[in-house]
């Protein structure tokens, strides 16, 4: 079996750095907090390079699918500068969970308004200017991202400094984003409400250190602090609050003749099975018909449906604190195995925040060089998080602090990903890359004691990506 040469080669006759030297510098320079492309490449190429990336993402059931395309160009300027411009377009379609309705026994069921399919396009433009100094790399990035219901303008600066004969690297980063968020109100959609316009901003600070431990091992460690302020709620999502629902009120039950019942769950009456009702209406295509025929639009003109649904079914808007502080620690170890010409990359990430969400992420990736430019990389990732203190699948009453959400992303859960990457380099100037991933999120995958959440939010997704990079 032919293997990649594990030697430090020198500049070739065209004046370009060899692949091995590129990788050497990349290994020495690739640190957290640095512009991804510069960090991965680790040196300033004297060639113009283009990249094209295509991704297909598909969730299980009737949930969302995303198609993304990205074009990138990197151009060297003078002796020390490099600029990169990247344009990305992704199109999302499908349905997203809106609320968890209760059945007659009081058990929550996720409601996907499939008759109101999402169709959203996101356009992202980023420009990066990098300066390669003597033993340092400084990058400044400006970016903008626009969707039908979201706009983000962001910037960041990162600095990496080599010390200790390039055996140690220190990195510092700062990022800022100003975002506008609203819901793209569609009167043809049931349960949607008029747009609200809000702002949020985010500031990130990171510091990192990388160290060559021995001839085969590199260790990296970084800490990132993230502060988010403003409207951090989801304008589309709602929660059921039993005490706020007319249909669950003891007074109504008594009025209907159930004088000896104070809780609707004791009745298990099919009339009070709201989850079953909406599920049936969706499955039969009634919701789709109402939306498509314009009846929903007409009803929205005549009545304040969000207000009525809140009163009757106890639907409350997603409401989160207007501040969030996160601390994220990342430890990365890379070790080379000569016997198999491979490298094991092991990551551990720990995050904690003042929303009560702490998480662990563990990832293993095994890069195996097969020779002739081929590389295969199987990998596995495990993620687990504790639920936010204001999360539940539904609420008996509005909590004293006033915050509540049933967004599945703030629930307690775990997720396992299986990945496989295959790449092939044609000489030094062309690389083809294929990535496949299966992601399985489950409530009972959570590490330790299970926190608020439920199997109703379990789902899977698969992702296929193809990349092509060329240098001239």
């Amino acid at each position, binding site marked *: 079996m032919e293997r990649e040469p594990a030697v430090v080669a020198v500049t070739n006759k065209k004046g370009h750095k060899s692949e091995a030297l590129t990788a050497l510098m990349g290994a020495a320079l690739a640190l957290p907090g640095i512009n991804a492309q510069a960090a991965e490449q680790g040196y300033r190429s004297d060639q113009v390079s283009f990249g094209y990336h295509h991704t297909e993402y598909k969730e299980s059931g009737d949930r*969302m699918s995303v198609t993304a395309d990205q074009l990138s160009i990197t151009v060297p300027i003078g002796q020390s500068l490099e600029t990169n411009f990247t344009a990305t377009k992704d199109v999302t379609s499908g349905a997203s969970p809106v609320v968890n309705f209760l059945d007659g026994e009081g058990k929550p069921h996720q409601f996907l308004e499939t008759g109101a399919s999402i169709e959203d396009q996101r356009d992202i433009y980023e420009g990066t200017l990098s300066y390669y100094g003597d033993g340092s790399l400084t990058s400044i990035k400006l970016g903008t991202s626009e969707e039908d219901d979201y706009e983000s303008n962001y910037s960041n600066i990162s600095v990496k400094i080599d010390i200790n004969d390039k055996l140690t690297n220190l990195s510092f980063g700062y990022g800022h984003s100003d975002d506008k968020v609203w819901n793209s109100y569609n009167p043809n959609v049931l349960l949607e409400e008029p747009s609200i316009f809000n702002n949020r901003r985010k500031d990130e600070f990171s510091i990192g250190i990388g160290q060559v431990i021995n001839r085969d091992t590199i260790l990296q460690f970084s800490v990132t602090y993230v502060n988010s302020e403003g409207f951090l709620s989801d304008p589309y999502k709602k929660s059921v609050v039993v005490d706020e629902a007319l249909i669950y009120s003891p007074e109504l039950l008594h009025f209907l003749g159930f004088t000896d019942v104070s809780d609707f769950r004791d009745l298990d009456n099919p009339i009070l099975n709201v989850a079953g009702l909406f599920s049936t209406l969706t499955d039969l295509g009634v919701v789709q018909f109402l939306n498509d025929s314009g009846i929903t639009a007409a009803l929205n003109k005549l009545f304040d449906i969000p207000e009525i649904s809140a009163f009757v079914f106890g639907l409350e808007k997603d409401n989160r604190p207007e501040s969030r502080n996160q601390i994220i620690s990342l430890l990365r170890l890379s070790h080379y195995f000569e016997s198999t010409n491979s490298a094991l990359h092991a990551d551990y990430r720990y995050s904690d925040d003042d929303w009560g969400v702490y998480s662990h992420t563990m990832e293993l990736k095994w890069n195996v060089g097969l020779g002739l430019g081929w590389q295969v990389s199987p990998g596995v990732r495990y993620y687990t998080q504790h639920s936010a203190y204001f999360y539940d699948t539904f609420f008996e009453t509005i909590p004293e602090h006033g915050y509540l959400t049933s967004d599945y992303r703030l629930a307690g859960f775990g997720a396992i990903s299986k990945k496989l990457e295959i790449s092939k380099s044609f000489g030094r100037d062309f690389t083809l890359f294929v990535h496949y991933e299966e992601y399985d999120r489950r409530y009972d995958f959570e590490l330790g004691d299970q926190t608020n959440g439920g199997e109703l939010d379990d789902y899977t997704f698969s992702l296929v990506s193809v990349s092509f990079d060329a240098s001239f």
Partner: protein
Amino acid sequence: MPKLSITCLTFALISTSMLSGCTVEKVRVWQRGHLANPVMTRDRSSAQATLEQHTYSAKESTAGGYGTGAGGCGCN
């Protein structure tokens, strides 16, 4: 914020031990061949690495930690 203090302390300890050289081999330039092997570059496609993190950040509560930079999104 005690957890912040613990994080800072952990960072200081790991950084100090990494810099102290007590467990670190003084690897000369000509001894860095294995570190130079292409397989030691964790992500062969930076675009893929960025997209992966964006996907996770849209589906999980924890986002980032791999470097500052990305803007927000209205992902559902």
